[in-house]
């Protein structure tokens, strides 16, 4: 029998409903069964981008998570040994009502924040209130994913109940999202924006320091609620914005890992240099680059211009070349290619921007530009200053658009100014990204909800039809009907050409073989807590 995310979740829910709940897993026992776990030591690893702030609620860059995740807990989390199955983090157990209209979580007792205060259900409520209804001046980039929560109740200090307005088949995934870190209600009451600049979590490590442009460090949380964890005494994440510097540091042993991913060429180079000292792990990646048009800027308010630009891109030819030199690999729609609800290639090629007859497609694109009076179109492509894979994507797009007579300047900025420009709408065309942590279509499609519903839709387009189709697929229990809604949404999205996935990535992670206990997954947002990592030195 094929185990899908849905069957796994149903199984989990069923097991819980039968009373198999409330286990208090003793991590010391697990350690005893595992061969030769060694305690102590400091893990030094590379982070290839500087986080714009410390608040994962307001972020969608891994840089924030790789910096902040070790200091925080979430309600649930993914079990990376059984991905995409979920397990409790601060939730000791949970129950889902048969009609999926309520979720009840029992919290671990005696969970302490770094400031010494005890976590209660009030902290979880304050966190989720902030996520679903952020106060003035606070950004919650995943607000739309919690729109179905009607009320949050806290019957006692260790119980929290989410009452739903409507059944949502993706809720457990959202509760397991690594971005939904639990904050202290006291901190949020003091200043709802506190988490942007202050770290006070219940995670396996406590914050030591963050030196901008240099490093972030943490030390073992002696009061961590999971007995026996973490194994490490501490960690140091070193910001290495240049890939070459990161690889040299990895080769020289100054860093022992980089958990985001490297290109095939970088992998080959490191394997040749380090031989069996290096561990290489590969996976498809729940991450894609997106070409986004700011529909509030002329001439990108004209669907003909947007569509023409998408039709000029030879994705199929590009994926063959770019996969040799970068982390960009698969051609796909809004849902990760190869995942159960993804649009198959046979249907994808019928959509604008995915034609395999690129010559014909470009001729049509030129006609559209001529009709729109934009034959000599010039614009700036906003891109992120991360060599892999943003630079190859920029080079590729400039070349593709030149072939229909469009002149483009590839402007690469550091993460913070890049995100600031995109979020504020101060751009024309951008290489955006969709940073997912599982294959749930709802999660992937949230990106394309109307801007007024989801600020992460950087095209700033508002489209009621897309919102309607999104809701329909969200509520649909029948897989085939849900697929049909997803296809309809993709068709509308690509016909309107607000934004479109460029390529999906392929993840290659390099670690020294002395780094143990870290688990590979299709998402670089997962496993960043580092609680099970140890050093075999």
């Amino acid at each position, binding site marked *: 029998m094929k185990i899908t995310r849905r069957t796994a979740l149903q199984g989990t829910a069923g097991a819980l409903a039968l009373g198999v709940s409330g286990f208090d897993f003793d991590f010391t026992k697990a350690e005893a069964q595992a061969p030769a776990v060694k305690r102590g030591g400091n893990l030094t690893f590379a982070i290839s981008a500087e986080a714009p702030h410390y608040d994962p609620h307001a972020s969608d860059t891994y840089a924030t998570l790789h910096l902040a995740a070790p200091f925080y807990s979430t309600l649930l989390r993914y079990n990376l040994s059984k991905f995409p199955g979920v397990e409790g983090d601060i939730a000791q157990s949970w129950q889902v009502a048969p009609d999926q209209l309520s979720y009840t979580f029992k919290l671990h007792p005696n969970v302490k924040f770094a400031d010494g205060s005890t976590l209660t259900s009030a902290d979880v409520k304050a966190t989720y209130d902030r996520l679903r209804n952020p106060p003035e001046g606070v950004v919650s980039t995943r607000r739309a994913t919690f729109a179905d929560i009607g009320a949050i109740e806290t019957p006692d200090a260790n119980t929290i109940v989410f009452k739903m307005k409507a059944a949502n088949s993706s809720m457990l995934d959202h509760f397991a999202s690594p971005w939904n870190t639990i904050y202290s209600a006291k901190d949020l009451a003091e200043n709802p924006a506190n988490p942007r600049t202050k770290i006070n979590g219940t995670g396996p490590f406590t914050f030591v320091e963050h030196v901008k442009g240099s490093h972030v460090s943490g030390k073992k949380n002696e009061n961590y609620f999971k007995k026996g964890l973490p194994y490490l005494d501490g960690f140091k994440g070193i910001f290495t914005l240049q890939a070459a510097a990161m690889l040299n540091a990895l080769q020289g042993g100054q860093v022992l890992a980089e958990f985001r991913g490297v290109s095939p060429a970088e992998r080959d180079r490191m394997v040749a240099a380090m031989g069996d000292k290096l561990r290489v792990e590969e996976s498809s990646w729940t991450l894609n680059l997106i070409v986004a048009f700011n529909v509030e800027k002329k001439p990108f308010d004209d669907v003909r211009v947007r569509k023409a630009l998408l039709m000029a891109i030879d994705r199929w030819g590009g994926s063959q070349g770019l996969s040799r030199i970068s982390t960009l690999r698969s051609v796909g729609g809004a849902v990760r290619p190869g995942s159960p609800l993804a649009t198959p290639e046979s249907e994808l090629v019928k959509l604008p921007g995915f034609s395999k007859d690129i010559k014909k497609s470009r001729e049509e694109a030129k006609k559209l530009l001529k009709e729109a009076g934009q034959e000599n179109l010039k614009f700036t492509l906003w891109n992120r200053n991360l060599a892999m894979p943003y630079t190859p994507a920029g*080079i*590729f797009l400039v070349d593709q658009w030149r072939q229909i007579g469009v002149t483009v300047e590839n402007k690469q900025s550091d993460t913070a100014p890049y995100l600031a420009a995109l979020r504020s709408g101060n751009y024309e065309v951008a290489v955006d990204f969709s940073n997912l942590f599982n294959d749930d279509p709802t999660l992937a499609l949230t990106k394309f909800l109307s801007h007024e519903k989801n600020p992460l839709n950087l095209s700033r387009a508002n489209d009621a039809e897309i919102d309607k189709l999104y809701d329909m697929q969200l509520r649909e229990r029948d897989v085939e009907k849900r697929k049909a809604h997803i296809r309809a949404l993709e068709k509308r999205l690509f016909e309107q050409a607000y934004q479109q996935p460029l390529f999906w990535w392929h993840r290659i992670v390099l670690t020294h073989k002395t780094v143990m206990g870290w688990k590979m997954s299709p998402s670089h947002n997962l496993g960043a807590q580092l609680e099970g990592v140890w050093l075999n030195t």
Partner: protein
Amino acid sequence: MTIALPAVPAPRSREPNLLLDFSRQQPLGAVSFVIICAMMFAGVFSNLVAPYDPLTIDFASILGAPSWEHWCGTDAYGRDICSRLIFGSRTALVIGFTSSFVGSTLGAVLGVASAYFGGKIDDWIQRFVDILLAFPLIVLALVVVAALRKFVVGGVDVNLIFAIAIPIIPRVARVVRAAALSVRVMPYVDAARAAGYTDTRIIFRHMAPNVVAPYLIMLTAFIAQAILAEASLSFLGLGVAEPTAAWGLMLSGNAADFYREAPWMILFPGAAISLAVFAFNLFGDSLRDYLDPRFRM
């Protein structure tokens, strides 16, 4: 009794053809001048000279070895390296020449003014110059380029030009000041002052033309340094951005990943940078030897 006089070289007659005269006296300088001219020609007429479009990707030709089709091979995107070198000379020249010109000119003005006014003004300017001189050129350029954001005008990053020009200013100011100090005590400067001319007029009309020789020498010498700085900054990811053809940029990025299997990716851009820097340095030296009377004997 006859007195044997030492043979005094006949006064060098100024030939109408300066180029021939320069070539005869400074053959290496002439060779470097030819290289510079070739580079300028390639830069100005890149569109005509380059066999391929430097930005066109050809995935069928990724990492192609040098061949009749691609004289210098192709890079990780299948782009023709020879064409990118030719277009890269435009980037190198525009940024190299402009930053050297801006830096040298501002430095010369500062140096002449410092020498002319003397006293506290001279002290303040020179201490400021001392501070700037404490930083190596590339380090100061790195600081400036990191502090300033990109400001692209006509495809050229103006702030990058300033970032390279600023470290040049103190170096030129110090040399030009030394030359200007000797000019300041000349009777015609006193005469101009006595005639009631303004300071600006005396500096620009009477002193500046007499420090042109060191200025020109510094200008050419710093073109080489500016080209090197631009290549270094681009290599570090702070100069021009992909997919613009620039020599320093060609050495970074994918070149670091593929140089073992495609050594031509670093060989030719490296050779181009070395040749250009060598040519400008040699030309600067030869120009100094040619213009400085002490080297004519």
